[in-house]
C-alpha cells in the first residue's frame, strides 16, 4: 500500500511540477495521505473491529481494568514480571476482545490466586462489564474479536433436516477427534496434562466460549485459527459436542466417560468390593442361638 501511494504521489508530483502552483505540493501530499489511509481502511484486517466499541465503553473498561486487572497485567496491559524474571501476569496487547470474553466470561479471570492453571469458576463481572473490559483490551492492539452469534450457534445445524444434520455432525466429529480428543478426551470430559495442568471438561460450556477458546488458545491450549479450521467447521465441532451431550446414555451410567480406567476402577472397588463386603456380612451373622432356654 505504501509503495502504491508513493508511486501515486510521484506521478502526481510530476503533474504538479508542470502546473507550478504554490500549494500543489501540499495538496498532493494530502491527496497521497488520503489515498493511503483510504486504501488501508478498505483492506485492513477484519479483526480490527474497533468501531463496534464506543470510546465511552473503552474508558469504562479501562476504569474496571485498573481496579481489577492491573495488579497482574500492568496499568496499560503490558504485563508484569517478577524480580526473578518470571512472568507474573502476561501482556494483553493483541490478545483481542475474544480472549477477554472467554477468560472473564468463564470466571477464569480474575484469578483467585496464582497457580499452574486458571480454573473455571463463578463469573465475577456482569455481561456489560465484560464487554467494557473486552473493549479496552481490544483497544490495546488488534486481536481476535468476539464471534457473532451466527458463527458459533449450532442451533441451525441441530435443527436441520437429515441428511444435512447428520453430515455436519459427522464432519464435526471428525474434526473433534482429530484436533481435540488428544487433550479433552473422546467424550469431551477433559484430561490431565503435565505438572498439575489439565484440559477442562467441555460439558456445559457455552458455544460462544468453545468458539473463543479455539480462536484464542487460552493457557496451554493451541490456537485453531479461522484460516485453518474455518468458522463453519468450528460450528460443526460445537454442533457435534452439543448433539453428543444431548444423546441419552444408552449403555447406562457413564462414570465420567474417562474410559476403561475409571470403569475398571469402579468394577474392582465398588463391584467386587461390594461382593466381598456382602460375603463378610453373611458369614459374621450366625443363625445359631446362644440363648440358654433353647435346647433341642
Amino acid at each position, binding site marked *: 500500500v505504501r509503495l502504491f501511494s508513493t508511486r501515486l504521489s510521484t506521478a502526481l508530483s510530476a503533474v504538479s511540477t508542470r502546473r507550478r502552483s504554490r500549494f500543489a505540493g501540499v495538496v498532493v501530499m494530502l491527496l497521497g495521505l488520503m489515498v493511503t489511509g483510504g486504501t488501508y481502511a478498505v483492506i485492513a484486517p477484519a479483526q480490527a473491529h474497533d468501531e463496534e466499541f464506543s470510546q465511552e465503553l473503552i474508558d469504562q473498561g479501562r476504569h474496571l481494568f485498573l481496579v481489577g486487572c492491573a495488579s497482574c497485567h500492568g496499568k496499560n496491559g503490558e504485563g508484569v514480571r517478577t524480580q526473578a524474571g518470571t512472568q507474573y501476569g502476561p501482556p494483553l496487547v493483541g490478545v483481542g476482545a475474544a480472549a477477554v470474553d472467554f477468560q472473564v466470561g468463564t470466571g477464569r479471570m480474575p484469578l483467585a490466586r496464582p497457580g499452574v492453571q486458571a480454573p473455571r469458576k463463578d463469573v465475577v463481572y456482569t455481561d456489560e462489564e465484560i464487554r467494557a473490559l473486552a473493549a479496552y483490551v481490544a483497544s490495546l492492539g488488534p486481536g481476535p474479536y468476539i464471534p457473532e452469534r451466527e458463527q458459533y450457534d449450532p442451533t441451525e445445524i441441530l435443527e436441520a433436516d437429515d441428511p444435512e444434520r447428520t453430515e455436519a455432525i459427522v*464432519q464435526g466429529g*471428525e*474434526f473433534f477427534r*482429530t*484436533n481435540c480428543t*488428544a*487433550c479433552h478426551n473422546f467424550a469431551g470430559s477433559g*484430561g490431565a*496434562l*503435565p505438572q498439575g*495442568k489439565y484440559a477442562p471438561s467441555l460439558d456445559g460450556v457455552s458455544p460462544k466460549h468453545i468458539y473463543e477458546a479455539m480462536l484464542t*488458545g487460552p*493457557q*496451554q*491450549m*493451541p*490456537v*485453531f*485459527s479461522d*484460516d*485453518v*479450521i*474455518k468458522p463453519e*467447521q468450528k460450528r460443526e465441532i460445537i454442533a457435534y459436542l452439543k448433539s453428543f451431550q444431548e444423546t*441419552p*446414555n*444408552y*449403555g*447406562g*451410567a457413564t462414570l465420567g466417560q474417562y474410559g476403561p480406567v475409571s470403569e475398571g476402577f469402579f468394577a474392582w472397588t465398588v463391584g467386587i468390593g461390594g461382593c466381598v463386603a456382602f460375603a463378610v456380612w*453373611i458369614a459374621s451373622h450366625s*443363625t*445359631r*442361638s*446362644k440363648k440358654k432356654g*433353647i*435346647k*433341642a
Partner: protein
Amino acid sequence: VSQHSDEVAKRGDGLPAEEPIPNPGVAEHHPRPTDVDPAAAKRAERQIATFFGLSSVCTILFVVAYFTFEIGEDTDTIFGYGASHVTLGLTFGLALLFIGIGAIQWARKLMSDVEIVEARHNIASPESDRQESVAMLNQGITDSVIGRRPLIRNSLLGALATIGLPAVVALRDLGPLPGNKLEETVWEPGMRVVNDVSGAPIKAREMEIGQLVNAEPEIFFAVNDEGEPIYEGVELQQAKAKAAVILVKMKPEEIIPGPGREDWAVGGVVCYSKICTHVGCPISLWEQQTHHLLCPCHQSTFDLEDSGKVIFGPAARSLPQLPLMEDEEGYLVAQSDFTEPVGPSFWERGE
C-alpha cells in the same frame, strides 16, 4: 528326622503318635431357632420361597422388558439412560441375586446343622506300592535294552531334535521381509502439507503463534485419472500410520534449530511426525506455552522448540522432524521425506 519317621512307622497310618497341639474337641452345639421352633422353621421356609419367587418375577420382567422397550432408531430412555439396557441388566442381575440369597438362607436356616468330624488318611501310597512301581520301571528299562545299546538311544535323541526343523523352515513362509518399508513414508519433495479431515492446504502466515494443525500429506486426498482415491482402505491406513504429522507455530526466535536443520522451519512453523518414538501412539497433545508435546500413552514428552528432543518418559529417540519449505503459491510443502525412520525402534534399525 529319624525319630519322627520311627514314630510315623509305629502308628502305621501316617499320623503322629501324639498330636502336636491338643485336640480341643468339638465346640458346644448351639441349636438354631429354626431347629427348635417349628413356627420359626415355617417362617424361614416362606422367606426362602419368597426369594426364589422374586427371582422368577424378575426373570419374567426381563422377558417383558426385552419385548417392551424400543432400541435402535427411536430408543426408549429412563432417567437419560437406554431403557432396554438398564432394565435388562437390573432384572437379570436381581433374578440371579435372589436365587443366591434364597440358597444361602436355605443353607443357613434349614439344611442340616450338625458338626461332623472327618478323619483323613495319609496322602502317600503305602511303602509296598511304591517299591513295586520302582521295580516295574527298572524292569522296563532292562527289557528295552536301551542301556546296553546306546546307538538306538542316541539316534532316537537325534530324531527328536530334528523333528522341530520343519516348523522353523515353514515359519519363513509367513510373509516377505519388510524391506525398507519401515524407513520410508509417502512424503516426497514438494508434497503439500494439508489439513487432516478437510484436506485444505496451509500457508505459514495463515497460522498464528501457538497454533497447532493436525496434518497429512496431500496425496491422501488426491485422486487418479478415474476419480478414484490413490490411497484407500488398508493401504491408506498403513501409509497414514507412518506419514501423519503435526504443524505448530511459535515465535521464530524461540526455535533452537538442530545442526543441519537451520532451514527446516518456515516463519516459525515446524513440522514433526505425529507418531511417538516409544511404541507408536499418535500424539498431538501440545502445550502452546511450554512447546512440550506429551504422549498420552506413557507420558513421553518431546520439546518441539529443540528438535523434538525427549525431555521425559520412556521414549529413547527424538521425534523425527519433516523439513518444510513454501511452494510458489506460498503453501507449506515438504523439502523431502523424513531423514530418519518414524515411529518406534525396530530390530534392523540398530544403534
